[in-house]
């Protein structure tokens, strides 16, 4: 298969599509007035951003992390704890969470990036699970009961809105746009090329002068930073966090899933994956999960399995193929 180098024209085209998609997404709240559907919109945008962040390390650099719940949890806890214990505004909390997560990613990357394949993936699971267990048993951070973020007046300063979901929608949209843009810029930078080289063949990359280790570390730090921002946002959005809702293993898979189903290591994969998967998850859960009989799980599991097997290159393959045949 021949790979066409991303030309300037192609990239300008991508950027135009992105502006169009973002503008359409920004108009959605005008059409969607239902609070339940607005909720789904927030989650979809948030997962698009989270999966985009995961994609930087997992997709572009090829380091399959199944422990991103750790960074998400760090962001959520940093934001919630700084606010409830020290009265620090969530904006600073999110920034602090992002920075802490990036530092943790660098500290963990140092030993972990020597591991290959499944040994690496399992190490990421194990580290995230350890953090989950520690938070579950750590009284100061609320233990298993979690943290309630006290509701005050709606304001942008405290980033709290009890009456309207619109501010959350726009922040989530901005978050998705920023992660997309960061990926867009990185993709065409020196790092982007290094990451793909590391993913394809680390030995060959090393011999050509790519500093494999530093490439992985950079990807991990960027990825962890944005994942933690997402965690901070989520804490503000739901106003209550506990280890199960922000740090469980299931969550790490959910962050990777949109990228994998949409198209791993591609610019649009996470967005497409989230746009299909999240509404589907939420709708099946509320329309079929009510019985408590697991029908939602059956539908969801079958779907994930089916897409993974039928579209190994991701749903993006459907779009790309159509465009390719159209061009011919």
């Amino acid at each position, binding site marked *: 298969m021949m790979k066409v180098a991303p030309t300037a024209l192609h990239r300008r085209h991508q950027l135009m599509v992105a502006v169009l998609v973002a503008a359409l997404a920004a108009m959605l709240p005008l059409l969607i007035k239902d609070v339940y559907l607005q909720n789904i919109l927030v989650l979809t945008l948030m997962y698009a951003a989270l999966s985009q962040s995961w994609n930087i390390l997992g997709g572009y650099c090829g380091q399959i992390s199944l422990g991103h719940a750790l960074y998400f949890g760090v962001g959520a806890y940093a934001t919630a704890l700084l606010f409830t214990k020290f009265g620090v505004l969530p904006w600073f909390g999110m920034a602090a969470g992002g920075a802490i997560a990036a530092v943790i990613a660098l500290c963990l990357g140092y030993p972990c990036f020597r591991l*290959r394949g499944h040994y690496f993936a399992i190490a990421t699971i194990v580290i995230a699970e350890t953090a989950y267990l520690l938070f579950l048993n750590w009284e100061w951070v609320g233990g298993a009961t979690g943290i309630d973020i006290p509701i005050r007046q709606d304001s942008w300063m405290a980033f709290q809105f009890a009456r309207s979901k619109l501010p959350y929608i726009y922040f989530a949209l901005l978050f998705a746009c920023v992660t997309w843009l960061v990926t867009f810029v990185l993709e065409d930078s020196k790092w982007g090329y290094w990451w793909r080289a590391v993913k394809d063949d680390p030995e060959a990359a090393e011999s050509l002068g790519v500093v494999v280790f530093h490439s992985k570390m950079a990807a991990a730090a960027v990825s962890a930073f944005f994942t933690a921002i997402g965690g901070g946002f989520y804490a503000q959005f739901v106003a209550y966090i506990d280890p199960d809702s922000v740090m469980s293993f299931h969550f790490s898979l959910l962050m990777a*899933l949109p990228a994998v*189903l949409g198209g791993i290591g591609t610019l649009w994969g996470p967005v497409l994956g989230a746009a299909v998967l999240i509404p589907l998850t939420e709708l099946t859960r509320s329309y079929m999960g009510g019985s408590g009989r697991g*029908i939602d799980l*059956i539908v969801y599991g079958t779907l994930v399995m089916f897409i*993974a097997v039928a579209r*190994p290159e991701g749903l993006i393959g459907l779009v790309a193929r159509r465009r390719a045949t159209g061009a011919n």
Partner: protein
Amino acid sequence: MLTLETIVQSLASGLLMGLLYGLIAVGLALIFGLMDVVNFAHGEFLMLAMYATFGLAVSLAVDPLLAAPLVAAASFVFGAVIYLGIVRFAMRAASNRGMVQIFATFGLAILLRGLAQFLFTPDYRSVQNSWLSGKSLAIYGVYLPAPQLAGALISIAAFAGLYLVINRTDFGRALEATREDAGAVALVGIDKNRIFAFGWGLGAALVGLAGAVMATFFYIYPDVGASFALIAYVTVALGGFGSVFGAFAAGIIVGLVEAITAMILPPALKYVGIYAVYLAVVFLRPRGLFGSL
């Protein structure tokens, strides 16, 4: 208080549990060694076997000990069908095969959990009045519960059987050859898919056996597989992916470490010790204890 007696008691329980962990994990190791696939639905195989044992005990009054071979046989068929019906297709992916396999089997895990919830409801079940339950053996004051003891003995027997199958039978040779070079094996007329299906069947049968034993002393519910699956992945990786006897040794280590951690730290943190040992081992030996890949 920590006395010599309680320490010996904990270590003995840890050893018994460790042998069972080995039995749970070995199917995963076998499948991985054969075809580089990590089955993320492994815990759900265990869960289904526990329900099957429970079903036989409740509806036909078959004791779990008698049901074990039946459950293992049914698991074998189930595993082979999963390979032929799903995994075979996931293996065809030209690009990012690893992720496709992870999420194909992850989807399967969710599906099986949903099915269990649909068929059996999320209620916790347990097998009452089995031959083993409530009995125990005391050796020099060390108290060994009969279900765990039976599990440990079955695990040792299963590993011995597996050793014979791999080293002494035509199937074992074909298995070994396929894992070394699946392409060359096809040239000498061995059907790769049949070997893989057999491998999946065998892997599922082994975890099925573990499930039948565990049904005698563990609650049965749709999510029961999830916690054991994580232990199984860690066990397999600790032993070295693909190493069947690494899984045996690692299972024992995991069981002992869990018991020791539970003595030192609050019991809620008992898995932290296992995770720490895994990390320590792979940071020193990036391919696990016995991995040769």
